[in-house]
């Protein structure tokens, strides 16, 4: 029994990280649906969200302002990235688009290093440090914030895609771009929107996790790759799959680092990615591969 007692604790911290992976995975899915591009710069949006929110907070210590300001700033970066780096591409084959987004990721990370330096910054938790006893586990208020805000964001996103005209137009584009074009939807506009939206999601994830992990210029790469693994695991382009993949990955990683060895913590995500690619490449909830 002694070995099992920290289990709820691992699951709580796993779900918290998993919620962040899920937000990033959804961002990957939105862009993939609109363009079939894998946007490797997605993780850098998470880092930019965390760091810009921290900078805004240092200027004017208001958390809601920092959250909204961070998300808004990164959304602009996402839109600019699409406009400046992807739209001018002369020969938009998937290989060159992958290379460009990889280059973009490295470029944004380098700029962030020049702007913020290599030291980590902290953001205060949204509501205090006092842990809450929740059954067998103790939970930080920030854990609950991550899970709560994450769930709300996912619900808003689903509502946007199902209930609004713009959301339906984006889904139409994902389903069949040419047919969407024929009924008068501007596919270019939808592609741009998808980049803005997924940048906003990534930024929200980054700001939520910043009080728990600190914000530093190179945090985006690993988070992005794990969000990407979550997206593949759940089924690229499926939003429920992205959420499920993210949570599953977070918990698996937390259990493995707690029960086996913390050094291999980061390897778990990629092991699951390889496993998913080999056994079920369309993901848990994906359609045909």
């Amino acid at each position, binding site marked *: 029994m002694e070995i099992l007692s920290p289990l709820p604790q691992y699951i709580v911290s796993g779900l918290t990280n998993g919620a962040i992976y899920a937000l990033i995975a959804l961002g990957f899915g939105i862009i993939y649906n609109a363009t079939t591009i894998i946007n490797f710069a997605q993780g850098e949006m998470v880092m930019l969200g965390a760091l810009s929110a921290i900078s805004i907070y240092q200027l004017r210590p208001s958390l809601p302002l920092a959250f909204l300001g961070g998300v808004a700033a990164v959304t602009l970066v996402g839109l600019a990235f699409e406009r400046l780096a992807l739209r001018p591409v002369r020969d938009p084959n998937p290989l*060159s688009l992958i290379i460009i987004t*990889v280059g973009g990721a490295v470029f*944004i990370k380098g700029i962030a290093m020049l702007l913020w330096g290599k030291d980590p910054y902290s953001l205060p938790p949204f509501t205090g440090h006092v842990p809450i006893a929740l059954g067998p586990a103790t939970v930080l208020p920030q854990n609950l914030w991550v899970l709560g805000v994450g769930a709300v964001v996912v619900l808003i996103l689903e509502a946007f895609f199902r209930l609004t005209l713009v959301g339906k137009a984006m889904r139409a584009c994902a389903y069949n771009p040419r047919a969407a074009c024929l009924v008068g939807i501007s596919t270019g506009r939808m592609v741009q929107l998808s980049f803005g939206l997924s940048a906003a999601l990534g930024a929200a994830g980054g700001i939520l996790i910043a009080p728990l992990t600190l914000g530093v210029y190179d945090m985006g790469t690993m988070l992005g790759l794990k969000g990407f693994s979550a997206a593949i695991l759940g089924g690229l382009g499926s939003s429920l799959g992205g959420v499920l993949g993210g949570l599953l990955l977070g918990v698996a990683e937390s259990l493995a680092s707690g029960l086996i060895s913390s050094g291999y913590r980061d390897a778990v995500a*990629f092991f699951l990615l390889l496993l998913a*690619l080999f056994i079920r490449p369309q993901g848990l909830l994906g359609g045909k591969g």
Partner: protein
Amino acid sequence: MRLRRFLNRWLLFVAVVILIPLAVESEYYLTLLNFIGIHTILVVGLNLLMGYAGQISLGHAAFFGLGAYTSGILTGTYGINPWLALMAGLLISGSAAFLIGVPALKLRGYYLAMATLGFGVIVYIVFNELQTWTGGPSGLAGIPALALAGFSFNTPLKLYLLIWPAVIFILALSASLVDSRTGRALRALHDSEAAAESLGVNTQRLKLLIFVWSALYASLAGSLYAHTMNFIAPSSFDIMFSIKLVTMVVVGGMASIWGSLLGAGVLTVLPELLVFFHDFEVVIFGGILMTVMIFLPRGLIRGLLDLKEFRRYQKEGGGLSG
């Protein structure tokens, strides 16, 4: 005529390779040239994969690292013959590439990019964590120099005499691969997978062959690197290095054997030329990767030539500017 031009080009290249050590005495420049050589071997392999098979590996540093660590551990810790260790490295890297390639290449699209990315991260973590063998983050020291019949390759000049003949061999091997029946099938595959298949090319097997082939080059480069440095650490084999290799391919021009030499040369020398480079390294590599891919997708040289052609065309009042 074509044959003669072809022969001239190779003879010129071999002559330059032979003449350089006579003219260059500085150990610093020779070491730099040796790194260019090692990078060229890596880049040619990745270029075959990207330029001809139309697939991308975002984890090539892992195969480079597998070669380096296999050589380093077997010779440094266990005192095994370095040439045997090099073979063992090839075997390990080739098998790893085969195991990843079989399932990933069965699927259409860019699953190989994802699988190699994941593999690259895992291998990097294993290098860090398997401390009893790899020495962990602080690295593995005491790797002996390569030796052949009592002649030890232990100075930059002697290493030059080992590495550059290897580069010539790899370039020639790659050029003949591209010109062979397999190479023609590869180019067909790059232009249209469906068309290649309809002509009886087993595209999946061909892609797998090239992927394993490029992993073998990377492993060879890794072994040479380990014996050149006599010391290796995981930080030389991270994702950033994989991305640097992709940048070298892109700058040199995809589907160009000689371009690989150019890309490796330019991007190995550049950090040395610019003193302020260190802090800006990440930005510069990212920026180069994006701009070249957006504006000169055929690589630096051919891209600039295309631009010149286009300007001349405009000046003569032709076509597009019309």
